[in-house]
């Protein structure tokens, strides 16, 4: 799903490899920016306006369906030139092992890098305020009629499909590790503990993470 970070991250990593040069303001041709209307602004050496940061992450939030990361990179790296590819990758890999909805992490880190704490707040505000308010209003309206049979059936169908998307996201993450019995075994164990026992998440993490970290530390030179 949108907030499951890893597959999208791997996708972006793959798409990053051929291009590693930083976008410089004089370079206005030969860009592979998908939007034909996108014009590269002159890169500002020091200050990105807070409003622009907020607007950028509003776009990431609204169009982020199926991969907010792709949009974050498109805007922050390709269109605005706020980050180099290497800086963007650094941020992505930092967010990769921190808890939380990772796309927000990218917003926070990009905002922080550009303008410090105010930049981070602007990025969060852009990402959340409008989409959250509109979404809440829509959701509340929907909930009011959720008992109507038609809407209930539609939501049931959406939910069944969305569950499938979550399962696919997890499976795709496991795919590169399919020949590593330890990884598969631990994933199955986490799955069974979380889905079928009534243990809280904190206990499951506390039981499994040390095991996984020990193994991972031992594997690497």
């Amino acid at each position, binding site marked *: 799903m949108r907030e499951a970070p890893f597959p999208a991250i791997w996708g972006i990593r793959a798409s990053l490899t051929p291009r590693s040069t930083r976008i410089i303001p004089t370079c206005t041709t030969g860009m592979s920016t998908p939007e034909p209307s996108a014009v590269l602004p002159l890169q500002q050496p020091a200050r990105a306006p807070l409003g622009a940061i907020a607007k950028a992450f509003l776009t990431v*939030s609204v169009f982020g*369906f199926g991969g907010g990361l792709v949009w974050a990179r498109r805007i922050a790296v390709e269109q605005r030139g706020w980050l180099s590819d290497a800086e963007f990758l650094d941020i992505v890999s930092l967010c990769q*092992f921190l808890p939380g909805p990772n796309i927000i992490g990218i917003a926070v880190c990009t905002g922080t890098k550009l303008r410090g704490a105010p930049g981070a707040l602007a990025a969060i505000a852009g990402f959340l305020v409008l989409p959250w308010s509109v979404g809440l209003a829509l*959701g509340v309206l929907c*909930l009011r009629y959720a008992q109507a049979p038609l809407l209930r059936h539609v*939501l049931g169908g959406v939910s069944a499909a969305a569950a*499938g998307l*979550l*399962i696919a996201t997890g*499976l795709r993450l496991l795919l590169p590790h399919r020949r590593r019995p330890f990884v598969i075994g631990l994933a199955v164990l986490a799955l069974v503990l979380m889905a079928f026992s009534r243990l809280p998440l904190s206990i499951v993490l506390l039981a499994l993470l040390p095991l996984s970290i020990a193994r991972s530390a031992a594997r690497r030179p």
Partner: protein
Amino acid sequence: MKPSPGLLALTFHLAIVSSISFGGFPTVLPDVRAFVVTIHGWIADQDFTNIFAMAQAIPGPNMILMMGLIGWKVWGLAGALAASAATFVPPCAIYFTAFRLLRRFQEAHWQRVLRSALVPVTTGLIIASGIVMAQAAGITWAAIAVTAAAAVVMLTTRLNPIWLLAAGGALGGLGLLV
């Protein structure tokens, strides 16, 4: 106005789980469902599923919105604000601090170790979320088939997931999944 003890408990619980939501917020869905549906009975399973479906279908920060709607369902606007804040404030504080402290140590050995250690656990948890939400969506053969089909299409094509949600909604709306 005195804050309700239930809302405080939910806010506190969400703040804790969002702080340990390695691999993204979907990994904590089974825990949140157990907390609000099974343990406290604040919300019916049907409502939880409905809210999940809505949050997935509305563009924007879907997991934060989902927690907001759960808060709304029980405590109104105060609930929506508290539950949403508990979902995003702790991780944002962590991201902010970590970015300031750690960005110079990107390729530190322990970071690589931690990253690879998280893979098996978080993937298992994400799949568990899918299974739990599929169970909550209703255990009919048709619904299971929709879940399986969505997973297979997502894995084998690059189709935008919004179409899969739309297809699931259409099949459900036609009354084919009950």
